[in-house]
């Protein structure tokens, strides 16, 4: 298929981009074009105006400080996947990035694109939700920050206004001291080119990895593709917190995650199976995160 015709705009700054959105009703933003491109090729999206963000260099960065991680919306999956500072600070990001499609797609696809698309099966929406990230949204009227927990509203429906551009994601580092935190991002998917059936991002902070049985101080888990939005399973987190990770706690956490899920059945994964996967992948990701937390010193 070939896309329908449109007018093309290539702003070089965020303000130019938001002005273009304000000027052209129904204009579509394009970053990596790895999802939008498929829709346009199949004429499922036929915007009259396309605003190409690829020349907006100010959105393309990864900035890791002692206090926070900031990632510009135009950071490519591949940059996130291969960033040594992210691997150190918030390894869930590179873990999640490395599991998106194949390398050539990751060379183009962007963080902002994924969060803008807000597919509940997307990887970054789950990551920013698990890590309590904040999104900075810019419009011609200025900028605002929205916590990830409030950004995703319903199936592919978000806080982002028509004239807004996602500028960056910010995650405070304080909850994730590198010497006693472990993270994991695990998914089951039929193939690189398909959406995952389920993904689970988990983070665990222990009190002291040197102890014989380190206690889970803080646990985070977010599931993708088991609800209309990324699902933060707080009940599952509670099951593993306050004690060393045990088989019993993992079982309980899995059950809690499964109960919190509200999945839509799909072709090769009905509701019941996805609930089972929610439990299984919650267990696996907590276990992996804990092992990494304990082994991370």
């Amino acid at each position, binding site marked *: 298929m070939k896309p*329908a015709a449109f007018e093309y705009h290539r702003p070089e700054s965020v303000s130019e981009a938001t002005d273009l959105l304000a000027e052209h009703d129904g204009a579509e933003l394009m970053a990596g074009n790895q999802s939008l491109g498929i829709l346009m090729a199949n004429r499922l999206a036929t915007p009259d105006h396309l605003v190409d963000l690829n020349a907006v260099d100010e959105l393309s960065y990864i900035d890791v400080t002692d206090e926070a991680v900031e990632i510009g919306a135009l950071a490519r999956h591949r940059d996130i996947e291969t960033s040594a500072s992210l691997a150190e600070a918030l390894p869930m990001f590179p873990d999640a990035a490395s599991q998106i499609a194949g390398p050539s797609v990751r060379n183009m696809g962007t963080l902002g694109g994924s969060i803008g698309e807000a597919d509940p099966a997307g990887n970054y929406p789950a990551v920013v939700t698990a890590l309590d990230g904040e999104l900075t949204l810019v419009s011609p009227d200025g900028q605002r920050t929205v916590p990830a927990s409030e950004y995703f509203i319903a199936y592919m429906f978000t806080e982002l206004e028509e004239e807004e551009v996602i500028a960056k994601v910010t995650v405070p580092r304080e909850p994730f001291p590198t010497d006693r935190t472990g993270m994991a991002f695990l998914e089951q998917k*039929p*193939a690189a*080119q*398909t*959406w995952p059936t389920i993904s689970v991002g988990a983070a665990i902070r222990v009190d002291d990895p040197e102890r014989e049985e380190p206690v889970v101080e803080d646990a985070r888990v977010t599931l993708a593709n088991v609800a209309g939005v990324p699902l933060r399973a707080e009940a599952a987190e509670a099951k593993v917190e306050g004690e060393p990770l045990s088989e019993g706690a993992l079982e309980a956490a899995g059950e809690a995650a499964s109960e919190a899920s509200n999945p839509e059945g799909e*072709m090769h*994964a009905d509701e019941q*199976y996805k609930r089972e996967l929610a439990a299984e992948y919650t267990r696996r990701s907590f276990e992996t995160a804990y092992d990494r937390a304990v082994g991370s010193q």
Partner: protein
Amino acid sequence: MAVESGDASEVEASEAEEVSETDLLGAPIERREDRALITGDAEFTDDIQRSRTVHLAIHRSRHAHARIEGIDTSAAEDREDVLGVYTAADVDASDAPGLLQAANPPHANAPDHPVLAGETARYQGEPIAAVVATDRYAARDASEAISVEYDRLDAAADPDAALADDAPTIHDDSPDNVGLDWQVGDEERVDDAFDEAAHVTELDLVNNRVIPAAMEPRAAIASYQGSTEELTVELTSQNPHNHRDRLAAALDHPSGKIRVRAPAVGGGFGSKIHHYAGETLAAWTAMELERPVKWTATRTEGFLATSHGRDHRSQAALAFDDDGEIQGMRVDTRVGLGGYLSTVEAGVASSDYAKMLCGQYDVPEIDAQVTGAFTNTAPVDAYRGAGRPEACFVIERLMDEAAREMNLDPADLRRRNFIPSEEFPFEVPTGHVYDSGDYEKSLDEALETLDYDALRERQAELREEGRYLGIGLSCYVEACGVAPGMFESGLVRFTPSGEVIVQSGTHSHGQGHETSYAQIAAARLGVPYEDITVVEGDTATVPEGMGTYGSRSGPVGGSAVSKSAEKTIEQARTIAAHQLEAAVEDVEFDEGEFSIAGAPDRAVGIQEVAQSAYGGQDLPEGAEPGIEATTFFEPDNYTFPFGTHVAVVEVDPESGEIAFERYVAVDDVGERINPKIVEGQIHGGVAQGLGQALYESAEYDSNGQLMTGSMQDYVVPSAQHIPEMETGATVTPSPHNPLGVKGAGEAGTIASPPAAVNAVCDALEPFGVTDLEMPITPEKVWQATSETE
């Protein structure tokens, strides 16, 4: 006959120059076709640019079954960049019959298959209108501007739905939707065998509908010269001569005025054998407009309207005596045909399938019934293996399940029933006479490679730990190179400079004919490999032929080349005898040279003979000044390659996920012209079969809407899905052709699905799992294990 142990990939490909001509047959040399393909020089159909080319797009039915109440083409026609918009009414008003061609034997009932649907659309994606515009994008814009008014009808998306009492009628001439009805064997004797059986194993099996998905979409570029009525169609074809004849019939145009050329073709797997609307419409509109017309399918168009494969549902049973020896086999199969009977499906669904149901075993009696049902889905036709994978799946699933039920080792049960090697040729009750075989040997070889007994011990140990390893055997035999009744041509021509041109009516789209045929000719003629050029794929230059499918190119096409080479040697021998002043019967030929018996210093090379022959010098009286021979080789029987494949998997019952641990393939494809190419064919075939077993499925909803219309939903396996394969070979030559080859293109696809399914079922035996439907997704594993927990 010999056994080659271990992994054939250890054999390095070698440069042809380093192998003497006489050793070329059987040498794993590098492929000569690769250079064009690794540089981008190769010309695929869509690469062809002709001046004044315009582009065709097809507007397709949105619904699986609907009356077409009206078509509004005005918006498309109003566009400045549009040259023509066509519907069924325009085809009807033309001189072209506009019907796609299909084999229609007495057991079938093929309805008319128009290039553009007129009153009724019978599958989602069926062509309704064609537009020609100045470029690809404009053609698509115009196609989108067409609007069709439909009156939707109920649809039947699978053969059982189509054969149900309340099913909608898809073709008025077949009110019960039966398009094919075929039977083999003796029902009464089979009933007796089952009555007297000590044990009966029964399975209801589904052979899932799959999509061939060659990487290159179908395409055509057609040019027409009105003054001479010459039509040239370059297209994605496995069989250019067949396509020429089908186009001639559909367009009512003399076949002598049609040139069909298949340039580089990016994979076929059967799907590029068939006669389709897209290519035919490109030809017809080129004639209407007298301009070159190019059409290239999108991937989704390919998924909707290029033939699918398989779609069988079978009730199958084997009867055994006390010793576990098979006494009879009963199979009842329903096949989904799709909205129309496609080109060769009548044979694929019936005899190509059911005549191979006995597999490697001495099955004394069989009763097999096949009922083909029209369905509101894409037509089904030959897909890599074409009937034999379906047959192999039935018998090999039954054998594994029978072994489990009778508490026998699956290898042991197979051994008890193998046709003994000394009994070939062997006639099975379906009528096939298997040419040659040694089934025990390939099984032994595979089990030895695996260290089978140790593996079974390990399986038992792991089960104690709650880990589930499964070992799945598949002992297959297939029928290649359909014969008698289908010939293939091979031409060998010396040029005046002494080089050699080889032509065949087959077509290579991955199989490496340029290399293999050159190996055959060089070995036979003793002429340097580099002096041989191989040409295929052009009806204007190549002798009449039937094309490449059914693993026939080696046994039939290669044999034709071999025979023609022998004929040119005889032509040259007469001339050489004259030049050597000897009697023809005293002239010997060896390694490219004619010499006189007993006087080896008096010799002349065959290339020199050719040079002098064309020069008209030194010819015997009455001899023609040229050296060229054509053979139309028709073997007197099929060939029957065989082997054993074994899949070893580990299954996680919690998540349902399946991981391959090993995959061992021991194949006997007779003599191998180029073992490296043969191994590649096995690899690719196995990958496609594993795709069907675990990942691929063309899914329609009950309304006949294709839910797997893109590669995002239809999982073509990637490098991450396919395990490292350990290949081995035994060699049992076929007696039916001069090369002793059997064909290798489909073996892997035939063998691997039951190997994988048997492995998963074996792993889940502790859960009481006896069958799982392909593709075995994690969901299905989980459902099966959680049900029995």
